């Protein structure tokens, strides 16, 4: 048993931490906090990181990585979250799935660009009728002589408006049980027939409806084998679900610092906007959340099969996130209601924004209810 990083991991953490401390700037942070997606400052940062092979250290060197451990990849996410760097999470999540299931041509075409911070991918799973019941996807891919024609609609596709490629879950067969007729495609978002319409959450996050009208894509767009998309989605989701809490660590530190300087309550032991126990419990849960995430990565490194561990990391981390921002906003009292841009708003109104935004975290990447079902089934509880 060893809870420490191995020397390569420690060295990498030091390297990326120092890099981000140097390269992060207000322009990037403003883009991240705007919730409007990747902007020019963020893109510039990702390119620089890509050049230094800091984005995908766990990938093979020939694809732009360093051949390091999955734990190292987790360190990337933790540090980028902590510094509020934009997360190219999609490409990074899609990468491992491509590594496992993609053709060699696909790996060579896309992986170096993702690892280099040059190209962005958007997830294309959710539809109006396919949320938790993702296997009910209806966006149809009909095979032709030289490729496929795509028709249908996606929704809540959050990265599409700034991405180069769509990682698209489509229906290729309607005559089989629904999860057996699904395929995964990589679609160039410049292809004619694709319309992107913005949607906004109540926190101000930009997401999108994406319409496919007779979109013609070449045969090479198909990832791996036809009708095996459900398996590929499962693999991608398994990686995506490991929740990395670097940004929560930053916000907790900002919250504590705020409390330490809060002149409304000179002595937290005598009277305080929240109890020391609440704060200690939050600190403990953030610590445990990080351990659960690294555990999933460490299991991957040891070749151990992950059954529920990434689901648990997502469940635990997302609920802790909500507890964190619920507590912070409450502790700020009336100041907690003030939104960014308001006079008197503490911390640029970020606690309020995070609080409203925190709602989606127990819904995206598999709602908490779905995660609990996955966990329950993994310990042997039967289906209905």
């Amino acid at each position, binding site marked *: *048993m*060893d*809870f*420490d*990083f*191995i020397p390569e*991991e420690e060295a990498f953490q030091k390297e990326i931490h120092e890099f981000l401390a140097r390269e992060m700037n207000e322009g990037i942070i403003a883009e991240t906090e705007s919730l409007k997606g990747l902007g020019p400052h963020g893109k510039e940062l990702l390119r620089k990181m890509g050049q230094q092979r800091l984005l995908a250290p766990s990938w093979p060197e020939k694809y732009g990585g360093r051949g390091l451990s999955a*734990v190292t990849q987790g360190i990337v996410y933790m540090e980028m979250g902590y510094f509020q760097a934009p997360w190219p999470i999609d490409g990074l999540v899609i990468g491992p799935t491509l590594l496992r299931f993609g053709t060699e041509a696909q790996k060579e075409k896309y992986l170096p660009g993702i690892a280099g911070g040059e190209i962005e991918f958007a997830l294309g799973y959710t539809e109006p009728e396919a949320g938790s019941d993702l296997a009910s996807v209806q966006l149809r891919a009909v095979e032709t002589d030289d490729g496929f024609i795509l028709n249908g609609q996606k929704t809540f596709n959050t990265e599409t408006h700034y991405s180069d490629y769509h990682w698209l879950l489509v229906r290729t067969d309607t005559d089989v049980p629904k999860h057996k007729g699904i395929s995964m495609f990589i679609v160039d978002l410049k292809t004619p027939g694709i319309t992107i319409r913005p949607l906004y959450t109540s926190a101000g996050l930009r997401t999108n409806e994406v319409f496919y009208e007779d979109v013609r894509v070449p045969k090479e767009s198909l990832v791996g084998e036809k009708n095996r998309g459900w398996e590929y989605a499962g693999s991608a989701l398994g990686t995506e679900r490991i929740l990395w809490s670097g940004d929560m660590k930053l916000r907790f530190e900002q919250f*504590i610092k705020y*409390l*330490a300087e809060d*002149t409304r309550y*000179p*002595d*937290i*032991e*005598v009277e305080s906007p929240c109890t*020391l*126990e609440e*704060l*200690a*419990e939050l*600190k*403990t*849960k953030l*610590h*445990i959340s990080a*351990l*659960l995430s*690294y*555990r999933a*990565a*460490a*299991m991957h*490194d*040891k070749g*151990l099969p992950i059954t*529920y*561990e990434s689901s*648990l990391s997502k*469940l*635990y981390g997302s609920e802790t996130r909500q507890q964190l921002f619920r507590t912070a906003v409450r502790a700020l009292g009336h100041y907690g209601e003030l939104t960014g841009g308001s006079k008197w708003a503490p911390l640029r109104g970020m606690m309020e924004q995070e609080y409203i935004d925190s709602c989606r975290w127990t819904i995206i990447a598999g709602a908490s*209810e779905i*995660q*609990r*079902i996955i*966990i*329950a*089934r993994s*310990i*042997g*509880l*039967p*289906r*209905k």
Partner: protein
Amino acid sequence: MDLSLSEEQEMLKNAARDFLTDKCPKKLVRDMEEDEKGYPPELWRGMAGLGWMGLIFPENYNGSDMSFLDLTVLLEEMGRACLPGPFFSTVILGGLPILDAGSEGNKEKYLPGIASGESIFTLALTEPSARYDAGAIEVEATSDNNEYVINGTKLFVPDANVADYMLCVARTGSGARDEDGITIFIVDARNPGISCSLLKTTASNKSCEVIFDRVRVPGENILGKLDKGWSVVQRIMERAAVAKCCEMVGGMQAVLEMTVEYAKQRVQFGAPIGSFQAVQHHCANMLADLDSSRIITYEAAWRLSNGLPGAEEAAMAKAWTSAAYQRVVSLATQIHGGAGIMVDHDLPLYFRRAKAAELAFGDSRFHYRTVAQGLGLGAK
């Protein structure tokens, strides 16, 4: 990073599980709840024969020289089995402190007996105030030539009714802080001034009132240094808290397995209740509590075992696990329905032990205050 047990630890765990499944069935657990001593001598001898008492002591004291982390593997199995008896008291509250703070003379005199299972030890720390801070220590030890005379009452002392020796935490002086002037004495339990009576507790663990009436102790029986005992007490508390977490994790594992088994078998509305979403969600929550407790407990144990600073992790582990075990037994009770609250069902054994474990060596509030200290908030 590797969060798994070593091969040797897996073997130790499996051997312990086999032994306890065979020699510590639930019938024995229940019988010992009614028994005056609280443990059967044959089981104690069996454990000693396997080298369990001596596991972490150096070989020259009859021990196996294994690590604290190795011991946690045993403790988890003991929690799973609801093992009755003074193992925890003897090894964690007696032997470890002597190993940690004792003179060569103390170690030579007491450790071999602990390792071989001949001697039973405990720690007399808490008093009627039932608090774990230094200010709560009021039992006095006054010096008289080369001896000390101890007077006062200790309460909630585990296994004092069967102990051969007690480590008694007493006040020998005063200073600027409550922590100054505290001394630990190794006291022979057969001393005529000691009277011990068994309290009745929810977990039927042998918790005692121990009255010290002019109990004379030789000067060389001081463990560590005069007036400087509190830092030793803190280290004992740290290890005891983590060791208790290991027992709790083992108990949670048993409760979850029992509950999943039940949910698969119990049929209502034409289907096993384990297929219902509410039940599945409860079980998932139980696993979340079990895994999160195990991971923070292992981290704390690993740090302490490797001589790394671990006070904060130990506090996190005890605070979190204490609350987690409560939730686990509550959800398990819900899922078991009427069956699970009956006196002859195994689940209440765990339910009651979860409460006792929560309270031992500081509950969530106590340990979260330690964690909060690290946040740097305080009077401005």
